[in-house]
């Protein structure tokens, strides 16, 4: 094996080590997703969302989180899935997104929250190439667990910088 190859493998191992850890998993249109637990600030039940005009469709509006006004985005709409009526199990996961300027607290609407999973590096596989059509930048990897495959999200990249700045400029 060449040095070059060893280096690549080393990097890969390092990369997957970095992804190892605890993930909060949730359901979105029947699929299981995970967000790094360190990004999650809290989980709250569905509450009244005040619609904000002139924002992208996936921005549902703002909520009052103990006196703080934070935006809420519907992950289904963001991922271009069919919208669904909110149910008893619908949750808002409050995450902290690293924006271009500073950390932005944001709520994410998901169908339901499942559990916190400890995912080992060895269980994480690289995102397969879906072809150019699909943007996979915001997928950290795929985790194989007993129950099936979970899509690990890099929540910072779900909203890419352009979208964040667009939000800041508020289209």
């Amino acid at each position, binding site marked *: 094996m060449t040095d070059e190859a060893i280096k690549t493998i080393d990097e890969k191992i390092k990369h997957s080590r970095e992804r190892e850890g605890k993930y909060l998993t949730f359901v979105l249109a029947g699929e299981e997703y995970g967000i790094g637990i360190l990004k999650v600030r809290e989980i709250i039940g569905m509450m009244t969302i005040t619609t904000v005009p*002139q924002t992208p469709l996936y921005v549902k509006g703002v909520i*009052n989180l103990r*006196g703080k*006004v934070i935006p809420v985005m519907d992950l289904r709409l963001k991922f271009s899935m069919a919208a669904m009526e909110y149910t008893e199990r619908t949750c808002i996961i409050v995450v902290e997104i690293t924006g271009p300027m500073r950390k932005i607290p944001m709520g994410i609407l998901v169908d339901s929250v499942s559990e916190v999973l400890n995912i080992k590096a060895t269980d994480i596989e690289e995102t397969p190439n879906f072809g150019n059509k699909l943007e996979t930048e915001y997928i950290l990897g795929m985790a194989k667990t007993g129950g099936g495959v979970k899509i690990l999200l890099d929540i910072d990249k779900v909203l890419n910088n352009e979208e964040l700045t667009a939000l800041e400029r508020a289209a």
Partner: protein
Amino acid sequence: MDYEKISNLVDRMASDFLFLSSRELDIPTAGVFLNTLESILAVAGQLRLPPIQKVVTAVNHLLEQIIMDNVRDKTSGFDSFERGISLMQEIVRDYQQKEVCEHEDAVNRYIKNISDLTGYQPPGTLAAAEESAMPATEAPALKTVTPILQEQDEGLLRDFITESFEYIEQIEVNILNLEQNPEDKEFINAIFRPFHSIKGVASFLNLDTIRDLAHSLENLLDKARNGELQVTAAIIDVILDGADALKSLIVQVRDKLDGKTDAAEREDLTQLLERIHRLDKGLDLEPAPKLVGEILLDDGMITKDALKEGLKASADNPGKKLGETLISEGLATPKQVTRALRKQAEHISDTSTIRVDTRKLDDMIDMVGELVITQTMIQQDISNQLTTDRNLMRNIAQLFRITSGLQRATTSLRMIPIKQAFQRMSRLIRDLAKDSGKSITVELVGEDTEIDRNMVDEIYNPLVHLVRNAVDHGLEVPAARIAAGKDEKGVIKLKAYHRGGNIIIEISDDGGGLKPDKILKKALNNSLIQDGEALTEQEIYRLILLPGLSTAEKITDVSGRGVGMDVVKQAVDRLRGKIEISSSPGRGTTFTTSFPLTMAIIDGMIVKVGRQRYILPTTAIRQAIRPTRESCTNVVGKGELVSVMGALLPLMRLSELFTVQTDPKDPWESIVVVMEGNGRAKGLMVDEILGKAEVVIKSLGDALKNIKGIAGGAILGDGQIGLIIDTEGLFNLSESIS
């Protein structure tokens, strides 16, 4: 003891004096001062405060002499009066804090000063006896210091002192970090910056010694930062000593400001500077141990000679500490030594105010807001349960009182009265008047109007510019005023008041007024307008807000380069404020500026559109009507119009602008709120008016700022968010859509 009464009296006198329009006293004003002095004397007698009594008697005498016109040098008479007042303030403050007076010397000096001026003889011989006991060395020290201090704004110096203590604190904290990680550039930077700031301000204030010391320390750190020098224990030591020396220099400045000139000669800094210099050159030194005597010297408690003697004596007495020796040899009083030791131990800081990170404040305000909402909900729940537990009801009522008090207190935390800014401005006017040879009376109205702490600083600069303009261009020179049949003295009026969610600040002068023809000519010359354009008077006045238009014939260093008013306009715009000009020839000009109270509670009307609630700022609302079928017109393809009191106004449908789902309605089935802003008026169609509310504007966060037509969000009584409408933005939005 209760010093509040006396403190109030003295403070009232100080502020009366500050607002004395000129350095002249008419008999009625002097009478007020005399009355106040009498009350102070009475209270001081009750409280047994001889220093105050002494000063009051002296000031009283001085005032009488001024009124009788017996004081030849009026200016210094006035200065003495001013100093007397501030001396009283100092003494009272001392009593309040420590129950002792440390100003005996200052009092005596003051009395001497008065007697020099007016031939005043203090009652009794006590003062005279103490006066002779005064050390002879003080007089020269005072002479060299007072003129420097007098020239400068005392407020600036005090700010500098407070800031510097904070800076030095930062330095001390970070230097300990640096000691642990000598390689860390971050820590070096963290020490470098405060030194740099101290240097900057000190040089601005002509505090040369402080500047030089800070500068050389900064140089040293710069080298360390660039890797030219290794951070060694010696360097850390010298920086710490330097910070200590800076601190004591600043304490000296403060003492002098407080009239405490009993400090002995200045500390000799040459040794320290030499150490810095040698380190700077890369000559390493052994860290010098700090001597006990040095501390005493630093504080100016003993002279160098006395220290030398004390050291000699303590060498003969090895069992004793230096402080004890100094006391036993009579070189320092026990009080001085203990005070020095206490000073060494305690943090020198001003405790009357503290600085708090605004984020912490905001968090607190948020949480209290939530507390109130939750509390209301609980109250609701309990009253729904028809409970008859009177104890519970009483406790709930008590809780309600406490939470609403808490809310008031927290919201007021960020608010300060505009007084301070006004006072700074009136001082500025006085200085400017002196420079420009005009005599000016300043009238202040509504100084207690409260405004967000941050806004004060923001609005200060544009306002100062307007004030300068008023002094420089607004008011005529005395000769011209007399010729125009006006009082020789010009009047500049600063007025502040709240109007809805805005603070309005008016700056008016009673000068010659704006000259529309002159402005027009200038604007034509600069091709800012086309010939023959029909402009209203208001529009002509607004021209002076354009860049490159100054009608001042004479360019002074105050204003008049044509870059003034447009800068003001920009600054006001940036703060989302407004500026209006009104003027009448020969009678004066008024600039009316209005600024939003960003963080403040605004008055709003809650309206409902579909299922959404919005808050319309009351300031922007002219009226709300339910239009008749006849008053509505639909210009096909252009938009709807509604006739309100004879005027046809464009109609905006909020549901369309904000794409809110609602049942389609006709204007005569709903309510039209007539909103105005920037000289325009439009009708806004809403479903329902829910009521009025005072709400706190909250930003929608970084991700959702600058949404057209939305100024922010507010948490309503039920804990949900209502969006606050930005009138101007909404108007623009409606125009860009249609």
